[in-house]
């Protein structure tokens, strides 16, 4: 899988590139700010661009804006945003705009290489990845607590993993359940939350996140 990496902190950028290469990714370019990243994506057309949200010059949301542009101009290029903060609005704004191929993770996740590279692969091949912290925050702060309260303990675990962007089989293996059982839970969750059932991974994530945020 061909990857472009963008971060203004050299140490982190190089370390990340090295980590990805070690894990079998093809790092096609490195960028220090949003402009460089856009140029890089234009010329190299990677499968996925991994970028920090805050980058020069203003250190606000340059990475996020670059991500929006990439998703609009290059439908085939996925974007994984890295952040040092849990900022749920950013993640959801992006998810609502595009048909999948979006991920949003805390930088801390790089310490678990397996999990991290899984997420990169998932996003790069058309899925979604939302940081568990973001999901946890959404679940904890949502107002329609009554409906989530109707869910069983198990169903709530499945809901969180769904929101992170995991597939049924991934959820099954994480929770040590068969795929059939997971499907049952998912159906039950969608019924209890009165959501439209859907097979497409991205739509499912979006539906769940939108619901949680309401």
């Amino acid at each position, binding site marked *: 899988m061909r990857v472009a990496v963008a971060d203004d902190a050299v*140490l982190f950028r190089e*370390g*990340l590139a090295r980590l990805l290469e070690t894990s079998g990714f093809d790092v096609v370019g490195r960028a220090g700010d949003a402009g460089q990243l856009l140029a890089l994506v234009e010329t190299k057309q990677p499968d996925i661009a991994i970028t920090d949200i805050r980058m020069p010059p203003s*250190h606000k949301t340059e990475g996020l804006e670059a991500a929006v542009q990439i998703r609009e101009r290059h439908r085939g290029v996925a974007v994984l945003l890295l952040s*040092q903060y849990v900022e749920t609005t950013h993640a959801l704004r992006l998810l609502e705009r595009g048909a999948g191929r979006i991920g949003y993770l805390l*930088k801390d996740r790089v310490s678990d*290489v397996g999990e991290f590279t899984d997420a990169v692969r998932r996003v790069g091949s058309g899925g979604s990845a939302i940081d568990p912290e973001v999901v946890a925050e959404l679940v904890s702060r949502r107002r329609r607590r009554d409906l989530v309260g109707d869910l069983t303990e198990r169903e709530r675990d499945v809901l969180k993993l769904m929101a992170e962007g995991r597939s049924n089989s991934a959820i099954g293996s994480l929770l040590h359940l068969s795929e059939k059982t997971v499907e049952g839970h998912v159906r039950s969750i969608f019924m209890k939350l009165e959501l439209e059932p859907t097979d497409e991974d991205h739509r499912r994530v979006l539906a769940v996140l939108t619901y949680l945020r309401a």
Partner: protein
Amino acid sequence: MAAALTWLASTRRHGPAIAGVSIALLGTGLAAATVVVAWLDRDSPPWLPGLSLGWTVAVQMVVEGLGLLTWSIVAAVIVWRQPRNRVSWVIAPTALLGAVLVFSGHYAFHGLFVAPGSLPLAETAAPFQLLGGPVLIGFSLLALLFPDGHLKSPRWRPLVLLNPVVYLVDMIGRLDNPNPLNVSVFGQLIVPVTMPPSAWPIGALLSWAGPWVGWAEVALGIAGATYLLLRLSQSSGDARLQLKWFTYAVAIGAIVLLANQADSPLLRGVLDANTLQAISIWAGLAQVVVIAVLLPGAIGIAVLRYRLYDIDIVISRTILYGGLAVFVAGTYGIVVGGIGSLLGQRGGMNPLLTILAIAVAAVLLEPVRARLQGLANIAIYGRRTSPYQVLSDFARGIGRAEPSDVLLPRMAQLLRDGTSAANVEVWVRVGDRLHRVASSPPQVGLAQTVGGVDELSRRGAAIRPVFHEGELLGTLTLIKPRGEKIDAAEQRLLDDLASQAGLVFSRYRLVEELRESRTRIVAAQDLERRQLQRNLHDGAQQRFVNALLALGLSQADGSEGSPDLLETATDEVKAGLAELRNLARGLHPALLGESGLHDALVTLADHLPIATTLRAAPDRRYPEPVEVTAYYIVAEALANAAKHSGASAIDVRIEEIGGRLRLEIADDGVGGADLTRGSGLIGLQDRASAIGGTLTIQSPPGAGTVVRAELPCG
């Protein structure tokens, strides 16, 4: 025609403009035509008692021409600007009918008398004189609907009906007139034509009402005047000024109407017949001028609000100069006429008496002028509050410790009441500018500041600075109506009030400075939080993420972990901890609480890249707020010196003198630092004043910077 135009005005988008222009063109055309015909007929002008032929022609042409022009232009502008105001529905037809009335008279006179047979339809034009009826109806409706097109209250509706009925009855009654017609609205122009005999029977139907109509018109006039005065007395704001203009014109009209009746048996015993006749003639002329020019002018000003606010000056000047004119004329009449007849002189002028009259008038002129001015002021502003009352009212307010935002406007109000000033303003110095904090009459958009007293004096106001403990706190400014000067009594009141105002001003300023300082403190806190967040994000957090990354990599590289990656992770964690430590010290130096100001400052100085000497008592401890404030003042001054001054040495001195801690931080850098611009020093000034201390900065360009602070520590 006019009604159609007004209808057009209310329906189409450009209607008002089109209607206005049409009215103006029609009126101007008729005015010009009237003047032309009057000039052609200059050898046989209307008969005006007591005026020579030439004068009559001149006066008639000017008054008629100007009158028609003024009425039609005013009507045109009102229709254009306020098409929905019912005043424009009335004034437009009135003005145009008046123009037709005047012009048709001249037309008929020329065609029937001066050059018989020269003009078509001259005979038809003569009875147009009956249009005087509708014009009077228009005048009466104007008086009722003025200025906004609505009645004072529905109770007066009968007047709206009665006026037209009475004037119509009057007009129809005039149809029954077998005598040659007078076609002049101005004097007498008799044409050899009567009302068409076919119309006589119609008039005869109502001729019985003749005597009653006269009385009814007088009654309606009185009712109208009452209505106008009631409306004026119960109005306020701009409407009051509008009514004042209108009433002013009507009042002048009433006065000249009375003067016009001067040649009456009642007065013949008092003044000689020649004088009375002259008064009567000139008053008659003045009456025409009032109706032709003053009335439409006043209506225009009032409805269009152009120079609306000048009415008080106009009334004041009218009372003053009108009174002076009457006084001078009266003096002359009494001295020359009265004493002359006592001495038995007949006719001719005695030069001695004339000189005597001039002398008397000259001696009495100034006292009379002052009296008249006082009278005018009372007419406009009502009775003044006495200076004693003003001062005691104000003192009572101070005694009750009312808040400044009540007291200051009251002070302005009181001062204006006591001086009949047009405008009084209260300015208070906050920082290095004067702020206008109150004014009478109150002004919208009150916030205004000026750099100094000089700027105020340029506005032509009387200014009285207010001092408290030798310091300028603000000013009271007083602006008299145009052309009036402040007199000694008013000056004294201004001074007395200013001497009491110091306390109120200083209190206001304290509150204001406190408010500003609070705002600054909140802003400074926000800024600090943002900086702290940024420091955490760019510093420690970044380090720890890097460490995590290195640890993750080392896991991926092999199960035993790779030594260089572990070393990177360790270094990053150490660096992150160091950053946190620095940050924590910036927030609140632990050393300060543990070992006191001296030790904390020594550590601070050690971290600086500039040679710093510190002179302070090593083991002396002070109350915590004093130590913390002193620490931050020194820390900020040092940081500024290190960042901006380019200094090579800094000298910090701290000593305790008479229960006050004195700090002095001096560098040898470029200077030019400013409390108000950017630096954190303004926040420190707030901090110092919060514990009763002061902070000053001295920083001439090129000569280093000295920050001095004094904090109470006893």
